[in-house]
């Protein structure tokens, strides 16, 4: 039993709100999911370039060390390679991140976890596969526990080869991703 059982969740309020209308539209629609509609309107316009300028210069990544590349990810985020120069910062909750760095082997047990993390991230979001393991299973490609076809599960924009890649390659991946966002050539079409 959690706190939501002690304090009754005001479902009634929720239902009540769903009945209200404004300009003939349900209030709840206007209130909760306007971003999607706004997106549709601005999809093709030049204002999109301004949006993408903001997005490309503020790429927060999900702190999720998985393998050898995870150690290089720490270094990439810290002083010697300093990703904050590019407006790139590590965040810990998927809700506040824009790019997921797959930094290692995806196993059978970790696949649902990483998929759920990906689904919890809010749009627009991008995915970068760092290292051989994240691309194809790497040296563990024939193991009974490793997923080889990562690209089938995630729309990966940048692949970085190496076992593990150097932190400079992380920076390069970041710059490639920024270029892709700027030119609207990323997989998800932002």
């Amino acid at each position, binding site marked *: 039993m959690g706190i939501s059982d002690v304090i009754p969740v005001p479902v009634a309020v929720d239902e009540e709100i769903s009945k209200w209308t404004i300009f003939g539209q349900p209030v709840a629609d206007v209130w909760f999911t306007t971003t999607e509609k706004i997106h549709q309107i601005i999809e093709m316009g030049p204002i999109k370039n301004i*949006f993408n300028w903001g997005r490309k210069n503020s790429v927060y990544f999900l702190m999720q060390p998985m393998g050898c590349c995870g150690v290089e990810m720490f270094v990439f985020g810290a002083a010697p390679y300093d990703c904050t*120069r590019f407006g790139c910062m590590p965040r810990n909750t998927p*809700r506040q991140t824009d790019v997921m760095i797959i930094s290692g082997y995806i196993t059978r047990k970790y696949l649902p976890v990483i998929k759920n993390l990906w689904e919890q991230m809010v749009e627009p979001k991008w995915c970068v596969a760092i290292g051989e393991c994240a691309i194809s299973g790497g040296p563990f490609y024939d193991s009974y526990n490793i997923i080889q076809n990562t690209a089938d599960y995630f729309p990966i924009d940048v692949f970085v080869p190496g076992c593990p890649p150097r932190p400079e390659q992380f920076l390069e991946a970041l710059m490639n991703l920024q270029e892709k966002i700027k030119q609207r050539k990323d997989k998800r079409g932002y």
Partner: protein
Amino acid sequence: MDGIIEAISSFASQEPAIYYLIIGIIGAVVLSAVVNIGAMYVIWLEVKLLGDFSARYGPNRVGGRWGLLQIVADAIKLFTKEDSIPASADKPVYVWAPIVASMATMLVAAAIPFGALYFNGKYYPLVVANMDISAFYVEAALSLLVIAAFMAGYSSNNKYSLLGAFRGIARMISYEVPMGVCVISVAIMAHSLNLAEIAQNQTLWYAFAQPLGFGIFIVALITDLGRIPFDQSEAEEEIICGYTTEYGGIRWGLILFQEYNNMLLGSILLTLLFLGGWAGPIIPVPGLSIISPLIWMFMKVVIVLWFLIWTRSALLRLRIDQVTDLGWKVLLPLSIVNLAWAVVVGSYFA
């Protein structure tokens, strides 16, 4: 010039309701612009200073070598992200929490003088609502933040969020009291509860007149702002992001801005209460003499902000029980000692 002022005053006497409505709207717009742009550059200052303290450059790719537009990019990104609400969240409360937080901040900002202008040998404080009890009012409005934090923590239906909210409440309750007592001590010495008057009445800066109170107020302020070593409610390595764990996009942006708004307002409050506000020698240059109080104020606030950011890169995080221990067992008795000191010294000065 005189004609315009006359016309306005005659309009104000004929239609007071419309006049105050217009003035109120202008004040609100100016206030929120000043506060939010201020918060943006507090964020920028923090990122740059944190970089400097830890041998990094900080953002330097957009807006010249100082990365001045970095925060604009961050804002554009945050404000154009998807609006996601967890399926199991308590939707109305979840939606309102960031708004309540911003509202609380604006309520505080309305009563705080951001500086003063000097002409005709007099100081004219720049404040939207110049109340007689503004010190008391600011204290009260600051405690609204805890309600917003709890709304966010409870409605997210996430264990990290809930723990973060609980921690935030425990922390705020234990530090509001010593902080309030410090403000009372200052008010006793200044014979006023008006922040502008408190700032002007400081012949000797209260940081020197009551150093104990100054120390307690700094600690309580850092706690109120939820910064290291008192950032238990958002302790990233323990409970991810505390009560903001489930917030993303524009809602998180609001909470983030509100935090840095508070940091700015907190520094201004500290400057007003203990560092003499805008006091400082008037620069004897025709154009600059009017804004010279503003320049002094700005410099003092930046120094306070620098100190607040410096603690983040130099100190470790306390445990929540140690925080409440410190609040109730050390700071509260000390603040009462400080109150007695203020009464004695204050009556001597009177």
